[in-house]
Protein backbone atom coordinates (compact mmCIF):
# COMPACT_ATOMS: atom_id res chain seq x y z
CA UNK A 1 0.00 0.00 0.00
CA UNK A 2 2.77 2.32 0.99
CA UNK A 3 4.44 1.91 -2.36
CA UNK A 4 1.28 2.79 -4.26
CA UNK A 5 0.76 6.04 -2.42
CA UNK A 6 4.42 6.90 -2.81
CA UNK A 7 4.17 6.31 -6.51
CA UNK A 8 1.06 8.40 -6.82
CA UNK A 9 2.77 11.27 -5.10
CA UNK A 10 5.70 10.80 -7.44
CA UNK A 11 3.41 10.93 -10.47
CA UNK A 12 1.69 14.06 -9.33
CA UNK A 13 4.99 15.71 -8.53
CA UNK A 14 6.55 14.88 -11.86
CA UNK A 15 3.42 15.69 -13.80
CA UNK A 16 3.29 19.10 -12.20
CA UNK A 17 6.79 20.05 -13.27
CA UNK A 18 6.12 18.90 -16.81
CA UNK A 19 2.91 20.82 -17.17
CA UNK A 20 4.57 23.90 -15.79
CA UNK A 21 7.40 23.47 -18.25
CA UNK A 22 4.96 22.93 -21.07
CA UNK A 23 2.90 25.98 -20.24
CA UNK A 24 6.08 28.03 -20.13
CA UNK A 25 7.03 26.86 -23.59
CA UNK A 26 3.57 27.58 -24.97
CA UNK A 27 3.68 31.01 -23.39
CA UNK A 28 7.06 31.68 -25.01
CA UNK A 29 5.73 30.52 -28.35
CA UNK A 30 2.74 32.85 -28.11
CA UNK A 31 5.01 35.77 -27.24
CA UNK A 32 7.25 34.90 -30.15
CA UNK A 33 4.34 34.69 -32.53
CA UNK A 34 3.30 38.17 -31.48
CA UNK A 35 6.70 39.51 -32.45
CA UNK A 36 7.24 37.89 -35.80
CA UNK A 37 6.04 40.30 -38.45
CA UNK A 38 3.43 38.80 -40.71
CA UNK A 39 1.31 40.12 -43.49
CA UNK A 40 1.84 40.64 -47.15
CA UNK A 41 4.93 42.46 -48.31
CA UNK A 42 5.97 43.19 -51.84
CA UNK A 43 9.26 44.60 -53.00
CA UNK A 44 9.30 45.71 -56.59
CA UNK A 45 12.46 46.85 -58.38
CA UNK A 46 11.22 46.06 -61.82
CA UNK A 47 8.79 47.55 -64.22
CA UNK A 48 6.26 44.79 -63.64
CA UNK A 49 2.82 45.44 -62.31
CA UNK A 50 2.57 43.89 -58.88
CA UNK A 51 -1.22 44.03 -58.66
CA UNK A 52 -1.72 40.59 -60.11
CA UNK A 53 0.62 38.96 -57.63
CA UNK A 54 -1.03 40.80 -54.78
CA UNK A 55 -4.41 39.56 -55.89
CA UNK A 56 -3.28 35.94 -56.11
CA UNK A 57 -1.61 35.94 -52.71
CA UNK A 58 -4.15 37.96 -50.74
CA UNK A 59 -7.08 35.96 -52.01
CA UNK A 60 -5.58 32.69 -50.92
CA UNK A 61 -7.15 31.88 -47.57
CA UNK A 62 -4.55 29.22 -46.73
CA UNK A 63 -1.73 31.72 -46.42
CA UNK A 64 -0.88 33.65 -43.29
CA UNK A 65 1.78 35.79 -44.88
CA UNK A 66 3.65 36.27 -48.12
CA UNK A 67 6.86 38.04 -49.05
CA UNK A 68 7.42 38.73 -52.69
CA UNK A 69 10.19 40.32 -54.61
CA UNK A 70 10.43 41.30 -58.26
CA UNK A 71 14.02 41.53 -59.35
CA UNK A 72 15.10 41.70 -62.97
CA UNK A 73 13.40 38.71 -64.52
CA UNK A 74 12.86 36.89 -61.23
CA UNK A 75 9.68 36.67 -59.24
CA UNK A 76 10.39 35.09 -55.85
CA UNK A 77 7.65 34.46 -53.30
CA UNK A 78 7.97 33.01 -49.84
CA UNK A 79 4.77 32.22 -48.00
CA UNK A 80 3.79 30.89 -44.59
CA UNK A 81 0.80 28.62 -44.30
CA UNK A 82 -1.97 28.10 -41.81
CA UNK A 83 -1.26 25.22 -39.45
CA UNK A 84 -3.41 22.59 -41.09
CA UNK A 85 -2.68 23.79 -44.61
CA UNK A 86 0.92 22.70 -44.06
CA UNK A 87 -0.16 19.15 -44.84
CA UNK A 88 -0.69 20.29 -48.42
CA UNK A 89 2.49 22.37 -48.56
CA UNK A 90 3.83 20.89 -51.80
CA UNK A 91 0.47 21.16 -53.52
CA UNK A 92 0.00 24.78 -52.46
CA UNK A 93 3.47 25.72 -53.66
CA UNK A 94 2.70 24.21 -57.02
CA UNK A 95 -0.70 25.90 -57.32
CA UNK A 96 0.68 29.32 -56.44
CA UNK A 97 3.49 28.89 -58.89
CA UNK A 98 1.08 28.06 -61.67
CA UNK A 99 -1.15 31.02 -60.86
CA UNK A 100 1.78 33.43 -60.76
CA UNK A 101 3.21 32.02 -63.98
CA UNK A 102 -0.14 32.66 -65.63
CA UNK A 103 0.02 36.25 -64.43
CA UNK A 104 3.64 36.80 -65.42
CA UNK A 105 4.42 34.46 -68.27
CA UNK A 106 7.73 36.18 -69.08
CA UNK A 107 9.17 35.96 -65.53
CA UNK A 108 11.05 33.14 -63.81
CA UNK A 109 8.68 32.34 -60.96
CA UNK A 110 9.79 30.60 -57.75
CA UNK A 111 7.46 29.88 -54.84
CA UNK A 112 8.46 28.42 -51.50
CA UNK A 113 6.60 27.75 -48.28
CA UNK A 114 9.82 27.03 -46.40
CA UNK A 115 10.38 29.09 -43.27
CA UNK A 116 14.09 29.42 -43.96
CA UNK A 117 13.34 31.03 -47.33
CA UNK A 118 10.70 33.17 -45.67
CA UNK A 119 13.21 34.45 -43.09
CA UNK A 120 15.81 35.17 -45.75
CA UNK A 121 13.29 36.94 -47.95
CA UNK A 122 12.33 39.27 -45.13
CA UNK A 123 15.99 40.14 -44.65
CA UNK A 124 16.41 40.58 -48.38
CA UNK A 125 13.56 43.04 -48.68
CA UNK A 126 14.91 45.09 -45.80
CA UNK A 127 18.23 45.56 -47.61
CA UNK A 128 18.72 49.18 -48.62
CA UNK A 129 20.85 48.82 -51.70
CA UNK A 130 19.97 46.62 -54.60
CA UNK A 131 23.49 45.59 -55.61
CA UNK A 132 23.69 42.21 -53.88
CA UNK A 133 20.08 41.30 -54.38
CA UNK A 134 20.62 39.45 -57.63
CA UNK A 135 23.26 37.23 -56.07
CA UNK A 136 21.19 36.53 -52.97
CA UNK A 137 18.17 35.64 -55.03
CA UNK A 138 20.21 33.14 -56.99
CA UNK A 139 21.41 31.63 -53.75
CA UNK A 140 17.90 31.28 -52.41
CA UNK A 141 16.81 29.68 -55.64
CA UNK A 142 19.57 27.12 -55.36
CA UNK A 143 18.57 26.41 -51.74
CA UNK A 144 15.01 25.76 -52.85
CA UNK A 145 16.22 23.49 -55.61
CA UNK A 146 18.39 21.56 -53.20
CA UNK A 147 15.38 20.77 -51.14
CA UNK A 148 13.40 19.02 -53.83
Amino acid at each position, binding site marked *: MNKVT*YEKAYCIKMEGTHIRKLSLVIFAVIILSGCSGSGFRIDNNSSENQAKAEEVLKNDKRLTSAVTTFHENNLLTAVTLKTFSRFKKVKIEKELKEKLENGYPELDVTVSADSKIWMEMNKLIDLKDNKDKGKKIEKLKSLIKEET
Partner: protein
Amino acid sequence: MVARGLLTFKTTPSIAATGVTAGPLEKKSLFAEKFDKVYEDERCGMKTNEHAHAKMMEDACMIALSKVDSVPSDADFLLIGDLINQMTPSNFAAKTVGIPYIGLFSACATSVSSLLMAALLTEIGMSKCAIAGASSQHNAVERQFRYPNEYGGQKPDTAQWTVTAAGVAAVTPHKKGFPSIECGTIGCVIDLGMTDPLNMGAAMAPAAADTLIRHLTGHNKDVKDYDVIMTGDLGKTGFELYKILAGNQGIVVTKKFRDAGEEFYGADAAFLSGASGAGCSAAIFLTEVIDKMRAGDYKRVLLIATGALLSPLSFQQGDTIPCIAHAIELTMK
Protein backbone atom coordinates in the same frame (compact mmCIF):
# COMPACT_ATOMS: atom_id res chain seq x y z
CA MET B 1 4.60 -38.74 -1.05
CA VAL B 2 7.91 -40.51 -1.21
CA ALA B 3 10.50 -38.40 0.51
CA ARG B 4 13.18 -37.69 -2.04
CA GLY B 5 15.99 -35.20 -2.11
CA LEU B 6 16.02 -34.88 1.67
CA LEU B 7 19.21 -34.49 3.63
CA THR B 8 19.68 -35.01 7.38
CA PHE B 9 22.96 -34.28 9.08
CA LYS B 10 23.58 -36.39 12.17
CA THR B 11 26.79 -34.57 13.06
CA THR B 12 25.15 -31.16 12.58
CA PRO B 13 28.06 -29.23 11.02
CA SER B 14 28.34 -25.63 12.15
CA ILE B 15 28.67 -22.31 10.42
CA ALA B 16 31.68 -21.08 12.33
CA ALA B 17 32.13 -17.79 10.55
CA THR B 18 30.77 -15.71 7.72
CA GLY B 19 32.25 -13.11 5.39
CA VAL B 20 30.04 -10.69 3.51
CA THR B 21 31.20 -7.97 1.13
CA ALA B 22 29.02 -5.55 -0.82
CA GLY B 23 29.15 -2.75 -3.36
CA PRO B 24 28.67 0.97 -2.71
CA LEU B 25 25.00 1.03 -3.65
CA GLU B 26 24.31 -1.58 -0.99
CA LYS B 27 24.85 1.10 1.64
CA LYS B 28 21.20 1.78 0.98
CA SER B 29 20.35 -1.67 2.26
CA LEU B 30 18.65 -1.99 5.61
CA PHE B 31 21.34 -4.49 6.59
CA ALA B 32 24.32 -2.45 5.39
CA GLU B 33 26.00 -2.10 8.77
CA LYS B 34 26.09 -5.86 9.22
CA PHE B 35 28.22 -6.39 6.12
CA ASP B 36 31.89 -7.00 6.82
CA LYS B 37 33.16 -4.82 4.02
CA VAL B 38 31.49 -2.25 1.80
CA TYR B 39 33.46 -0.98 -1.18
CA GLU B 40 33.46 2.68 -2.12
CA ASP B 41 33.95 1.88 -5.80
CA GLU B 42 31.51 -0.30 -7.73
CA ARG B 43 34.45 -1.90 -9.54
CA CYS B 44 36.35 -2.39 -6.24
CA GLY B 45 39.32 -0.62 -7.79
CA MET B 46 39.54 -3.24 -10.53
CA LYS B 47 39.45 -2.69 -14.26
CA THR B 48 36.32 -4.59 -15.19
CA ASN B 49 33.07 -5.53 -13.51
CA GLU B 50 33.98 -9.19 -13.74
CA HIS B 51 37.28 -8.67 -11.95
CA ALA B 52 35.44 -6.70 -9.30
CA HIS B 53 33.06 -9.64 -8.98
CA ALA B 54 36.00 -12.01 -8.38
CA LYS B 55 37.65 -9.57 -5.97
CA MET B 56 34.51 -9.32 -3.84
CA MET B 57 34.38 -13.10 -3.59
CA GLU B 58 38.06 -13.36 -2.67
CA ASP B 59 37.74 -10.73 0.04
CA ALA B 60 34.66 -12.43 1.47
CA CYS B 61 36.55 -15.75 1.63
CA MET B 62 39.53 -14.13 3.34
CA ILE B 63 37.30 -12.39 5.87
CA ALA B 64 35.50 -15.62 6.73
CA LEU B 65 38.79 -17.47 7.09
CA SER B 66 40.33 -14.78 9.28
CA LYS B 67 37.36 -15.03 11.62
CA VAL B 68 38.18 -18.66 12.32
CA ASP B 69 41.86 -17.76 12.66
CA SER B 70 42.73 -19.59 9.48
CA VAL B 71 44.58 -19.00 6.27
CA PRO B 72 43.52 -20.41 2.89
CA SER B 73 45.87 -23.37 3.28
CA ASP B 74 43.84 -24.50 6.32
CA ALA B 75 40.64 -24.81 4.31
CA ASP B 76 39.77 -28.12 2.67
CA PHE B 77 37.18 -27.12 0.14
CA LEU B 78 35.93 -24.06 -1.68
CA LEU B 79 32.36 -24.38 -2.93
CA ILE B 80 31.21 -21.17 -4.54
CA GLY B 81 29.29 -20.01 -7.59
CA ASP B 82 27.86 -17.09 -9.50
CA LEU B 83 25.90 -16.39 -12.67
CA ILE B 84 28.43 -14.91 -15.06
CA ASN B 85 29.65 -16.89 -18.10
CA GLN B 86 30.78 -20.32 -16.88
CA MET B 87 31.22 -18.85 -13.37
CA THR B 88 34.45 -17.16 -14.33
CA PRO B 89 34.44 -14.73 -11.38
CA SER B 90 34.30 -17.65 -8.95
CA ASN B 91 36.93 -19.50 -10.96
CA PHE B 92 39.28 -16.54 -10.80
CA ALA B 93 38.61 -16.05 -7.10
CA ALA B 94 39.40 -19.75 -6.53
CA LYS B 95 42.63 -19.33 -8.47
CA THR B 96 43.70 -16.53 -6.17
CA VAL B 97 42.77 -18.09 -2.84
CA GLY B 98 44.09 -21.49 -3.90
CA ILE B 99 41.69 -23.76 -2.00
CA PRO B 100 40.56 -27.04 -3.66
CA TYR B 101 37.51 -25.85 -5.54
CA ILE B 102 34.29 -26.99 -7.09
CA GLY B 103 32.17 -24.39 -8.84
CA LEU B 104 28.49 -24.80 -8.10
CA PHE B 105 25.62 -23.48 -10.12
CA SER B 106 22.02 -23.20 -8.97
CA ALA B 107 21.62 -19.59 -10.12
CA CYS B 108 20.60 -17.49 -7.11
CA ALA B 109 19.97 -20.65 -5.06
CA THR B 110 23.72 -21.33 -4.98
CA SER B 111 23.92 -19.70 -1.55
CA VAL B 112 22.04 -22.64 -0.04
CA SER B 113 23.15 -25.44 -2.36
CA SER B 114 26.79 -24.66 -1.56
CA LEU B 115 26.08 -24.75 2.17
CA LEU B 116 24.40 -28.14 1.75
CA MET B 117 27.37 -29.51 -0.18
CA ALA B 118 29.81 -28.19 2.42
CA ALA B 119 27.71 -29.78 5.18
CA LEU B 120 27.76 -33.12 3.32
CA LEU B 121 31.54 -33.08 2.98
CA THR B 122 31.83 -32.23 6.66
CA GLU B 123 29.31 -34.93 7.61
CA ILE B 124 31.32 -37.67 5.95
CA GLY B 125 34.43 -36.45 7.76
CA MET B 126 36.32 -35.27 4.72
CA SER B 127 36.34 -31.61 5.63
CA LYS B 128 37.50 -29.70 8.68
CA CYS B 129 36.79 -26.34 7.13
CA ALA B 130 34.85 -25.76 3.92
CA ILE B 131 34.13 -22.35 2.45
CA ALA B 132 30.69 -22.13 0.82
CA GLY B 133 28.88 -19.19 -0.69
CA ALA B 134 27.72 -17.22 -3.68
CA SER B 135 28.08 -13.77 -5.17
CA SER B 136 26.60 -11.44 -7.76
CA GLN B 137 27.65 -8.12 -9.20
CA HIS B 138 24.97 -5.81 -10.57
CA ASN B 139 26.76 -4.44 -13.64
CA ALA B 140 28.11 -7.79 -14.78
CA VAL B 141 24.77 -9.56 -14.35
CA GLU B 142 22.72 -6.82 -16.00
CA ARG B 143 24.85 -6.67 -19.10
CA GLN B 144 24.78 -10.42 -19.48
CA PHE B 145 21.11 -11.10 -18.80
CA ARG B 146 19.38 -7.87 -19.76
CA TYR B 147 20.57 -4.65 -21.34
CA PRO B 148 23.74 -2.53 -21.14
CA ASN B 149 23.77 -0.62 -17.86
CA GLU B 150 23.28 2.77 -19.48
CA TYR B 151 20.41 1.62 -21.72
CA GLY B 152 17.27 3.65 -21.12
CA GLY B 153 14.65 0.92 -21.04
CA GLN B 154 11.57 1.16 -18.85
CA LYS B 155 11.44 -1.50 -16.17
CA PRO B 156 8.04 -2.59 -14.89
CA ASP B 157 7.19 -2.64 -11.17
CA THR B 158 7.82 -6.37 -11.14
CA ALA B 159 11.51 -5.96 -12.05
CA GLN B 160 14.18 -6.62 -9.44
CA TRP B 161 17.56 -5.06 -8.85
CA THR B 162 20.55 -7.39 -8.86
CA VAL B 163 22.57 -6.92 -5.72
CA THR B 164 26.33 -6.36 -5.72
CA ALA B 165 27.42 -8.60 -2.86
CA ALA B 166 29.26 -11.77 -1.94
CA GLY B 167 28.54 -13.93 1.05
CA VAL B 168 30.46 -16.99 2.21
CA ALA B 169 30.36 -19.20 5.28
CA ALA B 170 33.05 -21.33 6.85
CA VAL B 171 31.46 -24.71 7.56
CA THR B 172 33.18 -26.82 10.22
CA PRO B 173 32.32 -29.90 12.24
CA HIS B 174 29.91 -29.18 15.06
CA LYS B 175 31.02 -26.36 17.31
CA LYS B 176 29.18 -25.29 20.38
CA GLY B 177 27.65 -21.83 20.34
CA PHE B 178 27.42 -21.65 16.56
CA PRO B 179 24.43 -22.17 14.27
CA SER B 180 24.47 -25.70 12.96
CA ILE B 181 23.03 -27.31 9.88
CA GLU B 182 20.48 -29.92 10.82
CA CYS B 183 18.80 -30.85 7.59
CA GLY B 184 18.02 -29.69 4.11
CA THR B 185 15.99 -30.33 0.98
CA ILE B 186 17.24 -30.35 -2.58
CA GLY B 187 14.66 -28.74 -4.83
CA CYS B 188 13.11 -29.95 -8.06
CA VAL B 189 13.09 -27.75 -11.14
CA ILE B 190 9.65 -26.19 -11.39
CA ASP B 191 8.43 -24.36 -14.47
CA LEU B 192 4.94 -22.94 -14.63
CA GLY B 193 5.38 -21.30 -18.01
CA MET B 194 6.50 -17.81 -17.00
CA THR B 195 8.54 -16.12 -19.72
CA ASP B 196 9.08 -12.53 -18.56
CA PRO B 197 12.70 -11.99 -17.46
CA LEU B 198 11.59 -8.74 -15.84
CA ASN B 199 9.28 -10.67 -13.53
CA MET B 200 11.52 -13.32 -12.03
CA GLY B 201 9.70 -13.34 -8.71
CA ALA B 202 6.59 -14.80 -10.29
CA ALA B 203 8.64 -17.45 -12.05
CA MET B 204 10.45 -18.52 -8.86
CA ALA B 205 7.52 -18.43 -6.42
CA PRO B 206 6.17 -21.91 -7.34
CA ALA B 207 9.60 -23.48 -6.88
CA ALA B 208 9.92 -21.88 -3.43
CA ALA B 209 6.46 -23.07 -2.41
CA ASP B 210 7.17 -26.57 -3.70
CA THR B 211 10.43 -26.88 -1.77
CA LEU B 212 8.82 -25.47 1.37
CA ILE B 213 6.10 -28.09 1.29
CA ARG B 214 8.50 -30.90 0.47
CA HIS B 215 10.73 -29.88 3.35
CA LEU B 216 7.90 -29.64 5.86
CA THR B 217 6.29 -32.95 4.91
CA GLY B 218 9.59 -34.76 4.31
CA HIS B 219 11.12 -33.81 7.62
CA ASN B 220 7.80 -33.94 9.42
CA LYS B 221 7.93 -30.35 10.55
CA ASP B 222 5.42 -27.58 10.97
CA VAL B 223 5.60 -23.83 10.45
CA LYS B 224 5.30 -23.50 14.22
CA ASP B 225 8.67 -25.20 14.70
CA TYR B 226 10.53 -22.30 13.12
CA ASP B 227 11.30 -18.81 14.27
CA VAL B 228 11.61 -17.62 10.73
CA ILE B 229 11.15 -19.06 7.25
CA MET B 230 13.11 -16.90 4.88
CA THR B 231 13.14 -17.08 1.11
CA GLY B 232 15.96 -15.78 -1.05
CA ASP B 233 15.05 -13.23 -3.66
CA LEU B 234 11.39 -13.45 -4.63
CA GLY B 235 10.89 -9.70 -4.38
CA LYS B 236 7.60 -8.02 -3.56
CA THR B 237 5.62 -9.60 -6.40
CA GLY B 238 7.10 -13.06 -6.06
CA PHE B 239 6.74 -13.08 -2.29
CA GLU B 240 3.01 -12.33 -2.53
CA LEU B 241 2.54 -15.17 -5.00
CA TYR B 242 4.60 -17.55 -2.87
CA LYS B 243 2.48 -16.83 0.19
CA ILE B 244 -0.70 -17.45 -1.80
CA LEU B 245 0.68 -20.71 -3.21
CA ALA B 246 1.78 -21.88 0.23
CA GLY B 247 -1.60 -20.87 1.67
CA ASN B 248 -3.37 -22.90 -1.01
CA GLN B 249 -1.46 -25.97 0.20
CA GLY B 250 -2.87 -25.54 3.68
CA ILE B 251 0.10 -23.77 5.23
CA VAL B 252 -0.67 -21.03 7.70
CA VAL B 253 1.21 -17.99 6.45
CA THR B 254 2.35 -15.91 9.38
CA LYS B 255 4.72 -13.05 10.07
CA LYS B 256 7.48 -15.64 10.26
CA PHE B 257 7.62 -15.64 6.50
CA ARG B 258 10.26 -13.25 5.30
CA ASP B 259 11.96 -12.62 1.98
CA ALA B 260 15.51 -11.35 1.69
CA GLY B 261 14.91 -9.74 -1.71
CA GLU B 262 11.87 -7.86 -0.52
CA GLU B 263 13.61 -6.54 2.59
CA PHE B 264 17.06 -5.84 1.18
CA TYR B 265 16.53 -2.24 0.09
CA GLY B 266 13.58 -1.50 2.33
CA ALA B 267 10.65 0.35 0.79
CA ASP B 268 12.74 2.35 -1.71
CA ALA B 269 10.53 2.52 -4.82
CA ALA B 270 13.54 3.06 -7.07
CA PHE B 271 14.37 -0.64 -6.66
CA LEU B 272 10.88 -1.59 -7.88
CA SER B 273 10.06 -5.12 -6.74
CA GLY B 274 13.17 -5.48 -4.59
CA ALA B 275 16.58 -7.11 -4.74
CA SER B 276 17.70 -10.26 -6.48
CA GLY B 277 20.87 -12.15 -7.28
CA ALA B 278 22.93 -14.86 -5.68
CA GLY B 279 24.58 -12.25 -3.46
CA CYS B 280 21.24 -11.06 -2.11
CA SER B 281 20.26 -14.28 -0.35
CA ALA B 282 23.85 -15.07 0.62
CA ALA B 283 24.39 -11.65 2.18
CA ILE B 284 21.15 -11.61 4.18
CA PHE B 285 21.18 -15.25 5.29
CA LEU B 286 24.75 -14.96 6.49
CA THR B 287 24.37 -11.64 8.29
CA GLU B 288 20.84 -10.96 9.50
CA VAL B 289 19.84 -14.58 10.17
CA ILE B 290 23.16 -15.90 11.50
CA ASP B 291 23.64 -12.85 13.75
CA LYS B 292 20.18 -13.24 15.24
CA MET B 293 20.80 -16.93 15.80
CA ARG B 294 24.06 -16.25 17.58
CA ALA B 295 22.33 -13.59 19.66
CA GLY B 296 19.76 -16.19 20.62
CA ASP B 297 16.79 -14.49 18.96
CA TYR B 298 16.26 -17.38 16.58
CA LYS B 299 16.47 -20.99 17.64
CA ARG B 300 15.45 -22.70 14.44
CA VAL B 301 15.24 -21.23 10.98
CA LEU B 302 14.43 -22.45 7.49
CA LEU B 303 16.22 -20.77 4.60
CA ILE B 304 14.95 -21.30 1.06
CA ALA B 305 17.09 -19.81 -1.68
CA THR B 306 15.44 -19.53 -5.06
CA GLY B 307 17.08 -19.44 -8.46
CA ALA B 308 15.91 -18.82 -12.01
CA LEU B 309 17.76 -21.19 -14.31
CA LEU B 310 17.57 -19.18 -17.49
CA SER B 311 20.23 -17.96 -19.86
CA PRO B 312 20.07 -15.02 -22.26
CA LEU B 313 19.99 -17.57 -25.07
CA SER B 314 17.13 -19.65 -23.69
CA PHE B 315 15.08 -16.52 -23.12
CA GLN B 316 15.70 -15.19 -26.63
CA GLN B 317 14.78 -18.56 -28.09
CA GLY B 318 11.42 -18.14 -26.41
CA ASP B 319 11.82 -20.75 -23.70
CA THR B 320 10.08 -20.47 -20.36
CA ILE B 321 12.03 -19.85 -17.16
CA PRO B 322 12.72 -23.03 -15.17
CA CYS B 323 13.29 -22.35 -11.48
CA ILE B 324 14.73 -24.13 -8.49
CA ALA B 325 14.74 -23.69 -4.73
CA HIS B 326 16.90 -25.36 -2.12
CA ALA B 327 16.13 -25.38 1.58
CA ILE B 328 18.42 -25.60 4.59
CA GLU B 329 17.44 -25.79 8.24
CA LEU B 330 19.70 -24.21 10.84
CA THR B 331 19.41 -24.65 14.57
CA MET B 332 21.03 -23.03 17.58
CA LYS B 333 21.38 -25.06 20.71
